[in-house]
């Protein structure tokens, strides 16, 4: 206000001086200057009018109305937020999806008949130059409450232009191409009960038990299973109790797990008691214990010690159709170690080992096959080693691609539970040597391609089986593939 009055006064004084200086006579000034003065006076007048208006009773009422208007606007925003929050809370499940299209070229030499080729579900062909599949996954998760989490996945995996394929069983129905129906890949709840004297979690349902460490390196994603893939890779129903040990040991992400699941359940829906007393089927139970931790001093690493026992294994477990028989038990033990981006080198490395030991019970099925024997009584032990690395190429123009190599060797009587393998030929069940090369090319955050070549020299057959003597094999399998993965 002071500034305005001073300016007006200065202009008036200047005009007055001009008039006084001329002795009361008219003073000529340039037209432009005159117009500028008038414009300036007009602006000043408007500002004075505004200020007088604000100071007037009606002006004061208008100013007082501003907070009321603001309050109303804030109320409207809260109402809108309420609607958004309500809608969000009603959306109980978060959804994500994946689509994979893959083309494989397979070539199998020295097909080990009469036991059949080692590939899951593929017939007697010795090569297929372009075998196309599509795999769709619907991922679900929900934070039901702070300590109650749900995770699930439905999968449809099919061949191009074909609604059927080879053998599917409960352990691999979402991991073997079949028809276009959705299969329950996993659906489990993690519950951390409150008020427990020790940190305890219960996980129940259909477990995250496939594509476990170190599969995520080749799959270009984060860890997908509780269990190392060399020992257990398949869909499984069960319960896991986990005790957190970080607060006791000081080792990050350490815990001990006690797991139980069924490898086979004898149910017969046509009877009220869901049991068929006339057959030889028995439930196959799998009991397991795991200790896992981040390796002390090694950032982004994992160490898992595993011990599993499968009891009352019978041939019906694999749906072979042969007359079932309990043929024995098998123990499986392993150590898995893995470290990502070691010393910031860009290298991810892993080493996994496994030992299996059979405990046959003297029985064979009607074809004469026992638990890794043909007499029902001979015990066998096997072993396997699985190692590899992946290098993250720091080349931004190509979106930092990755290149990897894996090698695994299995002995004559090596056997584990990997029927849900993402590779049709169940690479980790190999009794021989398998070499696996791959290159991952990201196109953006959601889409990437993978080109790969796998070469397997089989020393012994029956890569997928627990039944009968493995026998010798000279089979050689070559697989070249390319896939596109879209995840969002």
């Amino acid at each position: 206000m002071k500034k305005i009055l001073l300016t007006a006064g200065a202009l008036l004084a200047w005009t007055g001086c001009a008039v006084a200086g001329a002795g009361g006579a008219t003073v000529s000034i340039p037209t432009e200057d005159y117009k500028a003065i008038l414009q300036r006076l007009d602006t000043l007048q408007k500002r004075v009018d505004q200020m007088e208006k604000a100071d007037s009773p009606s002006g004061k009422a208008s100013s007082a109305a501003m907070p009321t208007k603001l309050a109303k606007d804030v109320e409207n925003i809260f109402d809108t937020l309420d609607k958004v929050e309500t809608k969000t809370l009603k959306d109980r499940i978060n959804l994500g999806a994946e689509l994979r299209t893959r083309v494989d070229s397979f070539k199998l030499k020295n097909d080990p008949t009469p036991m059949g080729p080692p590939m899951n579900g593929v017939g007697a062909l010795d090569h297929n130059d372009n075998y196309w599949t599509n795999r769709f996954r619907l991922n679900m998760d929900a934070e039901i409450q702070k300590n109650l989490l749900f995770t699930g996945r439905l999968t449809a995996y099919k061949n191009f232009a074909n609604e059927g394929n080879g053998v599917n069983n409960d352990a691999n129905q979402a991991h073997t191409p079949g028809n276009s129906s959705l299969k329950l890949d996993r659906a489990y709840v993690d519950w951390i009960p409150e008020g427990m004297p020790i940190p305890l979690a219960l996980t129940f349902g259909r477990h995250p038990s496939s594509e476990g460490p170190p599969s995520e390196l080749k799959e270009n994603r984060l860890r997908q299973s509780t269990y190392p893939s060399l020992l257990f890779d398949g869909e499984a129903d069960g319960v896991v109790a986990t005790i957190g040990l970080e607060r006791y040991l000081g080792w990050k992400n350490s815990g001990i797990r006690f797991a139980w699941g069924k490898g086979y359940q004898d149910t017969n829906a046509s009877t009220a008691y869901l049991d068929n007393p006339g057959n030889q089927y028995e439930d196959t139970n799998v009991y397991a214990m795991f200790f896992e931790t981040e390796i002390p001093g090694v950032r982004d690493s994992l160490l898992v010690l595993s011990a599993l026992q499968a009891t009352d294994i019978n041939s019906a477990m694999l749906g072979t159709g042969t007359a079932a028989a309990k043929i024995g038990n098998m123990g499986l033990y392993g150590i898995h170690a893995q470290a990502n981006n070691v010393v910031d080198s860009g290298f991810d490395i892993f080493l996994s080992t496994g030992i299996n030991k059979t405990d046959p019970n003297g029985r064979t099925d009607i074809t004469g096959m026992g638990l890794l024997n043909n007499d029902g009584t001979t015990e066998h032990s096997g072993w396997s080693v699985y190692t590899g690395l992946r290098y993250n190429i720091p080349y931004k123009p190509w979106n930092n691609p990755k290149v990897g190599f894996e090698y695994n060797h299995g002995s004559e009587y090596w056997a584990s539970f990997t029927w849900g393998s993402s590779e049709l030929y169940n690479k980790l069940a190999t009794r021989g040597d398998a070499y696996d090369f791959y290159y991952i090319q990201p196109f953006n955050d959601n889409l990437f391609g993978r080109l790969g070549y796998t070469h397997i020299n089989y020393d012994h057959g029956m890569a997928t089986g627990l039944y009968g003597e493995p026998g010798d094999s000279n089979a050689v399998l070559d697989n070249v593939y390319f896939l596109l993965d879209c995840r969002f």
Partner: protein
Amino acid sequence: MQKRIVTMLTAMSLMLPAVALAASGDALFLQSCGACHKKGGKAAIVNPADKAGSVWDKYFARGRHTVDMGMSDADLQAVVKYLVSHAADSDQPAAAVIPK
């Protein structure tokens, strides 16, 4: 067989404990942000999964963290990258949960 054992041992030797030579986003997040954002600390506990990735980006771009973090631009970038990579809408590992 001998060759296999040598290969295994070579691979295992790479697993010996090693220390990261350069500060990573997760280390910076724990050290710098964790100095205040901790139980009983000056600020509330922060979990990267509290916000979606793009929300984290905008949070710092809009200068909403009013307290001076005392970090260089490069370090702040590393922290934001860590937060985005572990954000609510990022990929999460799938395994039976281990309680703390």
